């Protein structure tokens, strides 16, 4: 059977499964629509959270990023897992005890004002929309590559699938679909990794393969890799941080508190039956996430090793990497390279006209290395490889059967679709529940609200689809920024709402505005106002790239969060104290006793 046909069949089967689950678990009430009826088992909820949260970026891009960054890639591995500790200790159980449907509803009650809820809705919409653009672009890219359709048609198919299970099923449909999607994506990720680990190290468990010996040599895999990349003029795989130590620290923290502050993750903990379940469910979510996140560094290291070994034969045999016959002949390059050349994600240009591919770091700062490269007649790096290839082409590089390649396609689509659905639910509940039902149309019936929720979701899908087809050119960098925005606004306000009995309305609102404001200012200064090219205003800050202690814009959420805390406490001390009954309520949130099921604000 041809590769294309196999892919169609596997992807088609998984879609049929998702839609079948959606029909089976249709939502009939607002409770089912927003919190899946409130009776989801913590382990299933953990799986759904894992799928919800592991996006196309985690599945497709992360291992590739790590492969080229080496040690510096730890910011993603640590940042996107450590946040669950904060979530489990500081937020999830208390929000579950609080017992509402949505995050803005918490703000409305805890900070006793519509104003706080509106600011929260705006922050939520900014963070979620920024995030969803990246997902829809990912959906388009994945479909067009795997199914051979145009990018726009790919986005349309993706919209239709999400439409079916998110609009009809609401949180209930999404939860059970995401459980299925988790199974698909984790199989798709680990199966190729197991084969590759077995091939390179003889150890079938990729996590252990990373620290194992390299087959057919007396070196360890990582030692070998570190030698190879250094031989070719690249920075050390084991010891090169991302920018600076401070930047790594701040970036990791920003991703961690952003994870704990992203509304589509938080609302998952409203769906479990008990406070106790909210605590353990965060643990289960991290177990399921960790399966992928501990496989990723192995995939990264092995893919990078495979790539170098393919292009330069001397790196494995230990000969002279500069010898002309070490570099692979262009004519003899493997089939998978030819297939990926078509997509433009892998490019070759014969700069020195010798018919061979030289792949090395021509921007190396090592003069001795550059002199050797020049002496060998190398006239610059001749191979361009996009990060995203590393995961997607892995099974082809390892010569795995067609069904594995088809499975990876289905896994990538599951990752993008499940996250898009979770975000759409967060957006639609903010509009139908927090804005309409709780503020502007208080006499809306349950049926009317359910309808409004579905209409809001349709609108959100259309907008997301449009942005997916006409992606603003910042799409690729938006994921980290969405985390920074959530980190600087929602996380601090939630935490102060639970841990400070005296935090008042004015303080919380001022803190959120200051936090998200300064983060957006820093991002816009670097990337343009609303990401429009040419409107950057770095000149205002002396034209300095990363002017605040060398911190990159993606990492700035931490600084935004600190500003949020400082401003909130300063404003609190200058304004009227928090009402007595609110202080009592905060106290009651701290004890698990008496937690009923999640209820709507009536």
């Amino acid at each position, binding site marked *: 059977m041809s590769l294309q046909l196999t892919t169609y069949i596997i992807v088609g089967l998984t879609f049929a499964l998702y839609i079948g689950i959606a029909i089976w678990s249709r939502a009939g009430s607002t409770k089912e629509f927003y919190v899946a009826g409130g009776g989801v088992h913590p382990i299933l909820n953990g799986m759904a959270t894992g799928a919800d949260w592991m996006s196309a970026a985690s599945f497709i891009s992360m291992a590739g990023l790590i492969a080229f960054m080496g040690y510096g890639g730890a910011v993603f591995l640590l940042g996107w897992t450590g946040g669950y500790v904060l979530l489990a200790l500081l937020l999830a159980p208390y929000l579950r005890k609080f017992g509402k449907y949505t995050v803005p509803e918490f703000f409305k009650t805890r900070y006793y004002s519509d104003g706080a809820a509106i600011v929260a809705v705006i922050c939520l919409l900014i963070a979620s929309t920024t995030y969803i653009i990246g997902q829809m672009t990912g959906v388009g890219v994945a479909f067009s590559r795997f199914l051979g359709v145009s990018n726009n048609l790919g986005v349309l198919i993706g919209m239709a699938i999400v439409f079916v299970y998110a609009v009809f099923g609401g949180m209930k449909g999404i939860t059970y679909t995401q459980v299925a999607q988790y199974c698909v994506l984790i199989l798709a990720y680990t199966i190729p990794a197991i084969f590759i680990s077995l091939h390179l190290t003889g150890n079938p468990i990729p996590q252990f393969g990373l620290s194992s010996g390299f087959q057919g040599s007396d070196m360890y895999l990582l030692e070998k890799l570190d030698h190879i990349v250094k031989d070719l003029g690249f920075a050390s795989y084991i010891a090169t941080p991302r920018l600076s130590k401070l930047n790594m620290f701040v970036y990791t923290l920003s991703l961690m508190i952003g994870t704990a502050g992203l509304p589509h993750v938080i609302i998952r903990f409203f769906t479990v039956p008990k406070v106790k379940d909210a605590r353990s469910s965060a643990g289960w979510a991290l177990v399921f996430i960790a399966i992928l996140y501990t496989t990723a560094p192995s995939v990264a290291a092995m893919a990078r090793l495979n790539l170098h070994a393919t292009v330069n034969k001397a790196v494995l045999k230990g000969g002279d990497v500069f010898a002309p016959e070490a570099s692979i002949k262009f004519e003899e390059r493997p089939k998978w390279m030819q297939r990926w050349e078509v997509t433009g994600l892998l490019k070759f240009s014969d700069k020195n006209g010798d018919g061979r591919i030289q792949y090395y770091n021509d921007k190396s700062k090592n003069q001795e290395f550059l002199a050797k490269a020049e002496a060998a007649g190398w006239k610059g790096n001749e191979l361009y490889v996009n990060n995203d290839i590393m995961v997607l082409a892995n099974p082809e590089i390892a010569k795995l059967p067609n069904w594995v390649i088809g499975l990876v396609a289905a896994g990538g689509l599951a990752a993008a679709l499940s996250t898009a659905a979770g975000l759409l639910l967060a957006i639609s509940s903010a509009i139908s529940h927090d804005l309409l039902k709780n503020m502007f149309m208080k006499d809306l019936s349950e049926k009317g609200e359910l309808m409004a929720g579905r209409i809001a979701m349709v609108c959100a899908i259309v907008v997301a689809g449009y942005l997916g087809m006409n992606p603003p050119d910042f799409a690729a960098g938006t994921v980290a920024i969405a985390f920074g925005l959530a980190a600087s606004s929602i996380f601090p306000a939630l935490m102060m709402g639970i841990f400070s009995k005296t935090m008042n309305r004015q303080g919380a609102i001022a803190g959120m505005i200051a936090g998200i404001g300064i983060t957006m200012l820093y991002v816009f200064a670097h990337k343009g106002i609303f990401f429009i090219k040419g409107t950057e205003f770095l000149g205002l800050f002396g034209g300095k790239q990363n002017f605040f202690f060398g911190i990159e814009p993606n990492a700035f959420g931490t600084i935004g969060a600190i500003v949020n805390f400082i401003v909130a406490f300063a404003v609190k001390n200058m304004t009227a104290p928090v009402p007595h009954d609110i202080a009592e309520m905060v106290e009651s949130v*701290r004890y698990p006793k008496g937690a009923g099921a999640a209820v709507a604000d009536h």
Partner: protein
Amino acid sequence: MVDKERLEAYWKKNLGLIRNILIIWFIFGYVLTILFVEPLNNIKLGGTPLGFWFAHQGSIYVFVALIFIYAKLIGKIDKEFDVEED
């Protein structure tokens, strides 16, 4: 007001537990993996420098363990102070 005192004592104990867990979280998330990664890299675990291993894998296992440890310990404290859910 005995009840109130009991609840305050519960909360204090909970905060203490959270603090202790967060200290371990910080050590594995930031100290071993970012701040002092170089000296730690001189120690080898099999063929893997220890600092690199914590940064890429080890700390994630610790994070998972921390959540379940917290859930277990706070569950015990809940019982001790009789604030469990009905």
